[in-house]
């Protein structure tokens, strides 16, 4: 029974986390690392417990900014990718520009968003959007372009309209690629939201991180990092669930099918 529990796939990551915590604790003891460099795990857990309601509150704000940016990513990224995939002309104009814009470090321009959009949630959303946008576009373009030419010829031979071809063939075909882009994008959107909170905000996990950093409150900082990663993991898993529901036929999902 215990053996079964230990081997269950959902529990495996947690087992690994416990193992890492033990190693972390051991390393601090063995190498006598001072607490101002790395806090001890129990200090971090202590902060997680005592600051629980504040961390929960701030993480909700970060989550909102992340989801806002992610919604923009879906709303703009997928249509832009579709246009790029369908038009060589648009691709030749837009794609290089996209790659160029992606190479700009977002942290460097994040302060500008504050100047433009104020201290509210908007600059955070924009920052989350900008970080999450690119992977979705790249994988969606790839998804739409990888439809076999024979498949398209077949549809044409049946007299399919462009809309029919899109709905019945291209879109379902592109979904697995779109989802893999969305999964990368959601974790980057979390980072984007935090970047937004770093530069101009008085709320969110990014703000907690910054305050903790200023006060040399390492346990709080680590606690905030744990919460932040948890947000990323939970959102990622949520997309994973949607993916399973939407593309049960895909090779990556077959064991569950």
């Amino acid at each position, binding site marked *: 029974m215990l053996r079964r529990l230990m081997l269950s796939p959902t529990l495996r990551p947690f087992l690994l986390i416990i193992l890492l915590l033990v190693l972390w604790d051991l390393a601090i003891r063995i190498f006598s690392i001072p607490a101002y460099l790395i806090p001890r795990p129990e200090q971090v857990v202590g902060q997680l417990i005592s600051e629980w309601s504040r961390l929960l509150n701030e993480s909700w704000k970060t989550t909102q900014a992340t989801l806002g940016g992610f919604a923009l990513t879906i709303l703009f990224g997928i249509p832009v990718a579709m246009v790029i995939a369908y038009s060589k002309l648009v691709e030749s104009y837009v794609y290089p520009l996209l790659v160029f814009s992606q190479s700009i470090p977002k942290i460097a321009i994040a302060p500008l968003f504050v100047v433009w959009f104020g201290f509210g949630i908007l600059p955070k959303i924009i920052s989350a959007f900008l970080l999450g946008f690119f992977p979705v576009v790249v994988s969606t373009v790839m998804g739409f372009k990888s439809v076999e030419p*024979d498949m398209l*010829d077949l549809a*044409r031979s049946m*007299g399919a309209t462009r809309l029919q071809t899109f709905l019945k063939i291209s879109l*379902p075909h592109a979904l697995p690629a779109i989802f893999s882009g969305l999964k990368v994008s959601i974790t980057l959107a979390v980072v984007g939201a935090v970047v937004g909170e770093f530069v101009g905000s008085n709320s969110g996990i990014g703000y907690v991180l910054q305050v903790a950093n200023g006060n040399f409150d390492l346990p709080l900082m680590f606690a905030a990092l744990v919460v932040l990663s948890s947000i990323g993991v939970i959102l990622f898993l949520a997309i994973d669930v949607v993916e399973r529901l939407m593309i049960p036929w*895909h090779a990556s999902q077959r064991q569950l099918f």
Partner: protein
Amino acid sequence: MLMPNAPLIEARGVTKIYQTKDGPVESLRSLDFSIRDGEFVSVVGPSGCGKSTLLKMVAGLLGVTAGSLTLAGQPIEGPQKDVGIVFQSAVLLAWRTVLDNILLQAEIRRMPKAEALAKAQKLIAMAGLEGFEGKYPWQLSGGMQQRASICRALLHDPSVLLMDEPFGALDALTREKMNLELQRIWLESKKTVLLITHSIPEAVFLSDRVIVMSERPSSIAAIYDIDLPRSRTLDMMGTPEFSVYAKKVRSHFYAQGSLDH
């Protein structure tokens, strides 16, 4: 409407030139042939000689550069209603079951649902796919996938079946089996079949006539009538008559190089 044995597909001086970045590429040069209603015709030729191009032009997926190509007396312009296509790979949709893949043809052509379903079930029975209607393509062997794609090509009851190396990806044993089944389907349905293949035995075994193409820019090197009785058996492949036909076809490729694929 058509006279018996009237030409169903007719090509007169059909030429295809592709416009590419590196300039025009002449793929087919002045083809003349005609295919009668109900006839089984194969096209063999070296790789890259324009066989797929020819098939796509007959399907109306590609325009001809010069010459005239007609189906039942009408010039072929744009995708044809009365044609079904089978490609080298089965091109089944991974997210649809076998039955739903076959019904794709009906959905896109907006055929009446009940009628299409009845027709699909008949074809499934004919192709020996009973019990697999609810399976997904990845659960099927290559041969079964290709049978499903043949069913899909026949769902709207076209008078012409176009096949582009349909069995090229199958192993030799499955291929022979599929050849037998294709002959049976053809004998039952009396469709006009244009089969592209790079297997000389396959072409001789199945066809009423074999069109042999030359290297690029390709034209028709020869057309052979295959006067072997129907229905043919695999054992006939060992007979002297069969060998004579195969040898005739093969001689073209030894003269010009090889049938590399």
